[in-house]
């Protein structure tokens, strides 16, 4: 049976896996969202410790998902890995830098003799919390807005500007998605705090924070989505692979893939529902709706970026160098090998869920913070 599996099928299969990983990553960035509010949300040190500790128990998941996202992209679409990482150097380095300082900040911040001081490590958490989601949003936006590169006959990348990725920060649409991802991470961070911390005052402040973060999120997100729907896109001819500019390409993608449209709309509704039940019904479960909504909307965005004959990494400098899931993928053999590996993903998700539940059985209290030995 496996002999009948075509490369085109596997390219789509692996784009779906990449999209799932990306959507899980954006959801798990509630950790970063929480970190970005460590100066503004808590009223005292105990509240700050509680926020840091609830996020600190999950930071590894976000980090690991980012690493796996990178590894899976490398294995399935190595030409993207080579082109984007090797060209948009500064954007990726800035992302890496921000995640590097996060990894040690939790473990080191409250340990005696940490040399750099607690304030420095808290600043690291804040920087990662703010820059991480924003820069990842900007990088993903280039999937739609394009970059300045060309590939030679040996598929070696030449970046056409001397900014090596920093030019992405000059595009308003990129900035709007970056900011939308940041505010979404903050919304999810607040919902997670409400779900896991037992502190009435903090919950009240988090609910207020939900409203103030939802407004900019909606503004930036709607701006990006509307501009996306009415912008030109980069279409790949299914036979020749030739890239052409197509008006309203992403709107066409949504219309031509109604399932994706439904998932996208359902995602937005879920995020709004998660916020709504928390603000108006004082529910603690908003994170699960907002989380599911985040996953659905990011997943759909990735599908309209790569499916339906679309270039997922367009070149504005040399149109024919644009990357599609067809020309950027690994060989049939490698994609097939990786497909077998991917069968283990449900098991991975199952044990993550089991371990997550085991740790999150009770809400974190002030009392626990005073008695816990392994505390951040």
């Amino acid at each position, binding site marked *: 049976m496996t002999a009948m599996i075509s490369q085109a099928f596997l390219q789509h299969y692996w784009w779906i896996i990449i999209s799932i990983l990306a959507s899980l990553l954006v959801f798990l960035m509630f950790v970063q969202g929480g970190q970005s509010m460590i100066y503004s949300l808590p009223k005292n040190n105990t509240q700050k410790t509680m926020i840091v500790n609830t996020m600190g128990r999950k930071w590894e998941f976000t980090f690991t998902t980012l690493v796996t996202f990178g590894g899976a992209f490398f294995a399935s679409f190595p030409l993207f890995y080579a082109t984007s990482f090797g060209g948009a150097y500064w954007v990726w380095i800035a992302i890496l830098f921000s995640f590097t300082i996060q990894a040690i900040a939790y473990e080191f911040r409250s340990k005696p003799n940490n040399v750099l001081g607690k304030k420095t490590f808290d600043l690291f958490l804040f920087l990662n919390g703010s820059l991480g989601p924003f820069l990842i949003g900007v990088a993903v936006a280039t999937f739609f807005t394009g970059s300045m590169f060309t590939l030679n006959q040996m*598929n070696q990348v030449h970046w056409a500007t001397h900014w090596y990725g920093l030019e992405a920060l000059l595009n308003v649409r990129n900035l709007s998605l970056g900011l939308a991802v940041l505010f979404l991470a903050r919304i999810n961070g607040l919902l997670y705090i409400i779900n896991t911390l037992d502190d009435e005052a903090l919950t009240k402040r988090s609910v207020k924070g939900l409203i103030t973060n939802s407004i900019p999120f909606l503004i930036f997100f709607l701006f990006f989505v509307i501009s996306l729907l009415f912008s030109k896109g980069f279409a790949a001819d299914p036979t020749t692979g030739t890239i052409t500019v197509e008006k309203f390409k992403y709107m066409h993608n949504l219309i031509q893939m109604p399932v994706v449209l439904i998932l996208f709309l359902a995602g937005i509704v879920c995020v709004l529902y998660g916020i709504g039940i928390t603000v108006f019904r004082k529910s603690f479960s908003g994170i699960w709706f907002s989380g599911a909504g985040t996953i659905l909307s990011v997943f759909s965005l990735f599908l309209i970026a790569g499916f339906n004959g679309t270039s997922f990494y367009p070149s504005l400098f040399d149109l024919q160098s644009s990357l599609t899931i067809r020309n950027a993928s690994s060989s049939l053999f490698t994609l097939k090998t990786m497909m077998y590996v991917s069968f283990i993903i449900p098991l991975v998700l199952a044990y993550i869920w089991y371990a997550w539940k085991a740790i999150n059985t009770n809400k974190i209290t002030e009392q626990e913070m005073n008695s816990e030995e392994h505390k951040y």
Partner: protein
Amino acid sequence: MIDNIDLSLVDWSRAQFALTAVYHWLFVPLTLGLSFILAIMETIYVKTGKEEWRRITRFWMTLFGINFAIGVATGIILEFEFGTNWSNYSWFVGDIFGTPLAIEGILAFFLESTFVAVMFFGWNKVNKKFHLVSTWLVAIGANLSALWILVANAWMQHPVGMIFNPDTARNEMVNFWAVLFNQVAVDKFLHTISSSFLLASMFVLGISAWYLIRKREEQMAKRSILIAGVFGLLSSLMVAYTGDESARTVSKVQPVKFASMEALYEGKNNAGLIAFGILKDTDKKIGGKKVREFAFKIQIPGLLSVLTGGDNDSYVQGLKDHISGNEKLGIISTPEKMQRGKYARDVLTSYKRARLINDTAQIGAIKNVFKDKDFQNKYFRYFGYASIDKPEDVIPNVTVSFYSFHLMVVLGFLFIMIFSIALYLLFKGTISDNKWFLWIALLSIPLPYVASELGWLLTEIGRQPWIIQDMMTVSKAVSQISTGSVITTFILFAVLFTGLLISEVSIMLKQIKTGPKH
């Protein structure tokens, strides 16, 4: 077609990767080894129910946590630097190299990161058995991640299981099992994890010795020495065995690296193993490179021939055999390999030209050339030699290769002695009285780190000028970004890593001084 690269860009890119790798490897071996020591200690706690073992486990777990985070932090940069700094490489071999990295993420990192949270925070939240299983899974996950990244590195040393596709201009995997069970990968994995177990054992032994010197926490220290002593002795014996196997494999698949490790310029029968040697410069040269000879050496006659070929009559190849060739042994000279590599590159260039003008007859004809086994084995396997300017450029730095290898071996034997003495004194009941040994154990903590880094120095510098043995030179693999950008990020990372290292050591020392909680 293949652009000329600014050498300073290559040098800075190498420096940045080396910086990240060296720092990363300061933390990872302790994670690999200490995770198993923790699992053993916790198993004793669960089996015996004695609270003291819980206390011991939690103390070492605190030190594990401090080290673990910084290993993770440096690891993410290493993974992405393949793309940011070596993008040509990433495309040329991404079809093979990306697979182990992805499997590492899916199979190992999630296992490690999921259960490390239970290990740290689950003491009062989950039952004893679940917690114990979590600790074991962290150890297994960490070591599984080592497996996959070492499979990837081994493939760079000895590329197998792939074929070159002229359409995509890259190597494509055709046999996953050949990549996974590559002899270099098997040797490398076993040697690396056993040396990491050894390093962690020395860490536990040395710190426990400090408690005994200070007459503090004596029960905890002695129990820790018992675990570290047994685990360390077994590991150091395994290190010796796997190191020998590893060197034997290198002699077959990377003979130039092997000859450099032994500073063997002239191949010979009945070659002796250098137990100790000091190199000096001579006036002799191979091309433009100075030949280094021994100012002093102690060697065991015939042993190198016995170890590599089975008997003392076996011929051990020298560097000159590879530069000038050796017809009797069927070794092709480097100039000949350069010619063949250039021919292979010309065929590829013709193919790309034919593609550009859509000359179907030419495309078909050249495609058949690429399918021809003779072309693959006699010409394309030397593709990388097309980028070599002078034959002597294929000789790596002999001084670094020789000293790093021999110092590592000497240290390996020293570790066997230290663990043996520790166990002897412990069982005799006199370990606390032998201050001299306790001091040796304490001062030996950095030595496995030195040995481990020397191993990587040999692996990576000994492979130069190749990024993929015989197929791609380092200079052709680099991303074409500005040198200034790489210099800036090099400085940024150097400052960050150094700051974090100082912070880590300071925290660790404070935690050790504070000791376990009562």
